[in-house]
């Protein structure tokens, strides 16, 4: 396996060197950078390519920037692959983009190599976002996922990125929900971010059962929290205002939860949620109706 990788790297280097312009091939730092990649000395390779690119004869060639991008990608995979805000990866992308912008339309082969490298980097941004998205860290994954989307839109403009965007925003909403529920009193801004993430999903796919259901539950939980966290000595004047807000939230919850039910009438959680919403609205007959549907569903599932 290791031998195969070494062979492939050697072959890639050979192709890379063959594709560069003669003026670059004559630059000693440029040549040395290649040798260092071959020797797997990422630090030295990076230092020499940076020195070489200062030569205007080297810098004017798209191929040189491609090589620089390749070397930075090599540096990233050798030294910074676990660093989710890797500067080398960002630099590799910058160089590859520069190479792409300088490339004449006729250079199909080189274009395809640049795009393949950019795609590799995009995949790494995506994987990093997926790996690290949790309640203690969501800002960096948002940035990394944004990078993934940006690169993919550039290199494959016709690609349907909706599923990835939906998946990411649903996952993000999950994180926001956990953060909000841990401290609903002080994290109302997180709740708004949660709704924003779900709204993005619903804009992309209005028929998403998960997004409709989760949005309904956000409003539902907000309504329940409002009353349950009111102190027993809340004066009647204040209680009346809280009740007004609570009813409004339950009503806001309804269209989303009803839509989730319409899309998937056999989802037990939705039936339970609808029963809860109507209970909260003090419409006990409707609440009972959904509870009965839920009981019926449970019976069917047992058989």
């Amino acid at each position, binding site marked *: 396996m290791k031998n195969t990788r070494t062979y492939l790297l050697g072959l890639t280097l050979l192709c890379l060197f063959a594709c560069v312009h003669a003026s670059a091939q004559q630059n000693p730092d440029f040549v040395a950078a290649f040798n260092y990649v071959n020797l797997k000395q990422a630090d030295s390779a990076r230092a020499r390519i940076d020195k070489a690119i200062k030569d205007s004869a080297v810098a004017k060639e798209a191929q040189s920037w491609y090589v620089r991008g390749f070397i930075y990608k090599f540096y990233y995979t050798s030294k910074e692959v676990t660093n989710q805000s890797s500067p080398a990866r960002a630099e590799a992308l910058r160089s590859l983009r520069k190479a792409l912008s300088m490339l004449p339309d006729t250079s199909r082969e080189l274009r395809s190599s640049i795009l393949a490298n950019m795609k590799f980097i995009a995949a790494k941004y*995506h*994987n990093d*976002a*997926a*790996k690290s*998205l949790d309640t203690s860290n969501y800002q960096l994954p948002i940035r990394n996922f944004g990078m993934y989307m940006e690169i993919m839109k550039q290199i494959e403009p016709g690609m349907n990125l909706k599923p990835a965007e939906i*998946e*990411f925003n*649903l*996952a993000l909403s*999950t994180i926001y*929900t*956990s953060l909000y*529920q841990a401290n609903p009193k002080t994290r109302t801004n997180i709740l708004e971010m949660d709704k924003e993430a779900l709204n993005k999903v619903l804009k992309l796919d209005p028929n998403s059962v*998960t997004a409709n*259901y*989760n949005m309904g*539950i956000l409003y*539902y*939980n907000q*309504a*329940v929290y409002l*009353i*349950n966290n*009111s*102190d*027993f*000595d*809340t*004066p*009647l004047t204040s*209680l*009346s205002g809280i*009740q*007004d807000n*609570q*009813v409004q939230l*339950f009503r806001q919850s309804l269209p989303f939860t009803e839509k989730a039910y319409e899309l998937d009438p056999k989802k037990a*959680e939705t039936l*339970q*949620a609808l*029963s*809860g*919403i109507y*209970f*909260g*609205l*003090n*419409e006990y007959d409707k*609440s009972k109706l959904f*509870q009965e549907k839920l009981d019926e569903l449970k019976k069917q599932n047992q058989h």
Partner: protein
Amino acid sequence: MGFLIFSAFQQREDAAVMNAHQKAIFLYNFTKLIDWPADYKSGNFVIGIYGSYIPLLNELSKMASTKTAGAQKFEIKEVGAIEAAAKYHILFVSSDKMAQFADITSKLKGHGTLLVTEKEGMTKKGSAINFVVVENKIKFQLSKANAEKQQLKVSRDLEAFAVKEE
């Protein structure tokens, strides 16, 4: 590599608890806005629940652990049967016990007990406070006459918050 997605949901019981919590807030307010007879101003402040209403029992027990009615400690009782000699400051009669309501009013007639119900028309049958739903919200009807029959003085503030019976 994919992202982890799940649905967060609080159980329906939360809505039932929420409903009971509101009623507990109302009941606590009643203790401040109603004046009980002198012989009810010492000892514990007793709130009885007649009928099965676990969420309210739990909420009132929580209230009792942190609040008092003036200088009196709260005592929350789940009532199995109404005794004529029993002393309750407030008796909440749940909707499943409405058939016995006439018997309750007769046994507690003249006691300093605030009778609280939650069924349409109960103030006409002797209840002083009756929870009702108005525009999806829990409100209460008040019968000042029924309260006075139980030697209770209702404040004007409480009257102002009560909804009129149709």
